[in-house]
């Protein structure tokens, strides 16, 4: 069973609303959340704080251009094995 992340073409985006006091706090919460899942190449694409909290979208790049994409390589490996 291939790892699920191997089928992500390039990046995983996560959107949520954190109850928090500042945009900076919301950004940190998002980065910590993504990193807690084991992703290392993480960033906040968008964050907007208004009174109750922050609307925030985080991104984990699974592959950047010129990486070796498992969604391609596993196809080739499967073909070789088959």
């Amino acid at each position: 069973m291939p790892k699920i992340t191997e089928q992500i073409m390039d990046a995983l985006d996560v959107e949520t609303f954190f109850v928090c006091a500042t945009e900076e706090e919301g950004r940190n919460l998002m980065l910590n959340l993504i990193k807690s899942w084991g992703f290392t190449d993480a960033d906040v694409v968008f964050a907007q704080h208004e009174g109750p909290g922050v609307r925030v979208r985080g991104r984990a790049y699974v592959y950047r251009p010129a990486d070796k994409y498992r969604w391609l390589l596993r196809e080739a490996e499967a073909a070789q094995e088959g």
Partner: protein
Amino acid sequence: MKKVLLAPLDPVHDIGLKIIARGLEEAGYETLLLPPDLTEEEIIDNALRENTATLLLSRTLGYGVAEILARFVDLADAAGIRAKVKLGIGGMAIRPELAAELGFDAGFGPGTTVEEVVCFIEGREYRPDPTRCAKTKPDMTAGYGYGYRHAGIAARLDRISAQIMDWVKDKSSPGVERARLRDELWNAAEWRARRGDGELYRHYPALCGDIPRKYYASGELHPKTRRFTKTEVEGLEKYLADTKARMSVRKLQHSRRKPLVFVQYGTGCPFMDIGHILASEAWGADGVVHFDPSWGARTEGFLDGFLTHQEDGTVITPANFNRIKGALEDSTLWQVRAHRGLNTPETAVLAGKMGADLTKINFCYGALGAGTDPARMVVDGYHTILYAKKYNLPFDVVTNEELCGVPAHKAFAGMLIVADLAVRLGGRPILQPLFAYSPEVMVGGLMADNYVDFNTAKIKALRGIIDAPLWPGAPIGFLTHTEDRVQSAMATALHACLASSLEVDAISIASTDEAYSGGPISAPSRIDTLRAVQEGFRFFGQAGINPTSEADRYADELVAGIEKVLDEVAARGDFVAAVHEGLLGSRAEGAYPGRSGKDTVTIVKK
């Protein structure tokens, strides 16, 4: 005639069933549609009385859906109809897996077609027809005669084009020479048949800069590039075969024929590009645009081989072009940008030989906004137009110098100069005004109330001057996008709808990552804007957007401004000097004549 009973298992909603019932009747079925708000027992009584072979239920409300549907199946079983009546269930909250779990024979979610239901009734497997959205590849320049509607501007352009043609006639450059070699010595069919590159590389490296020369001497690559492995190539081939087998494409324009919608790819990696292209085609893109890395524009000569690149812009090589071209749907228009940099003419030659449909040329923008020396850019641009004609490549004349701060009327004057020269040389230019919240607009308050009037004015002004195709870009909505994907998709869709309302020929759209600079554009962000544009086109259909009377005033001012600039350029009598002196955009306005390729123009000895 087969009888189908349709019943909403819902207190009020039955629209979906009505649509399916109408479709089934058109397909020759006898249908009986029960009213909403019947009990499960009443529906089963009707099924018994009508002796129906198929019962289609619908349930729009999501709350408690599983319990209600499970109870219905139990009751049907108890009444003895379950074994002889096919049971289907549809609705917003329904998915095939849920329906099967609850004991139904089929489940139909949102977007179900009548054909799917007919297949269910007749016990046939549903196979979506990939040709149901069959697209053709149109020529967006067809029907345009390039006749002038503004005689005064035509006369000014006549003088300027004559000056440029006279100036350029005895000039060449390393870029022009490489293009000539590629044109004369390199045969794409031979190369595809693995019979080599002919005599090209005996002469080519001598005309190149350091990076390609090192590559041809020792195989050393640009530090941000690497060759693909054999396993990666095999993986791509398998991926392409699998994806193409299930591929179909959407049409975005609803009831209209245009505008065609283009997206730009250029992740750096041809394989990732292909992934993005296939996703874009599936979600409705009519065309895709190739651009090279920024260092490629400042490098004399191309590399060769099957190369991936870590940063923005995909390396131009025959092998990379060949893979990308091979992955495209037959209906997809393929544009290769050649508007800037030191490889402009050879880009058009290679694009033409590899089967591109369009290119992009503007030596004014290339010199003022993209860093190439004006004299070099004019020589190279002139020859690029000739190659575009030879390889049957219409090209847009982009005006992105507006983003540096150049006022629209100056950028338009430059665009018209290139377009006029192109028409004289037999080319087919497409005018590309920006739909943008440009620095000129911000400073002048030209969009203080709305984004409609000034963008409309650009189209009105250009249509008042010449009968030529129009392709706002690139991308539409430049500088109106933010990192918020909802806002960005909305801004793109609204600009697209304005373009549609103005009946232009094509648009280029950005992804919702347009304003995000922290990393590469992601595949879903491309789909965001395609979906938004499709929804916008659906919303407006043949209806339109009404500008205010300001649009006419702005259009008049643009035309007057263009006339004044063309007067000044014509009077200067030396086009390259006019560019240096800021007549088409000054340093104060953010336009800096480029330095790349300075002093490389050569005089051709007779």
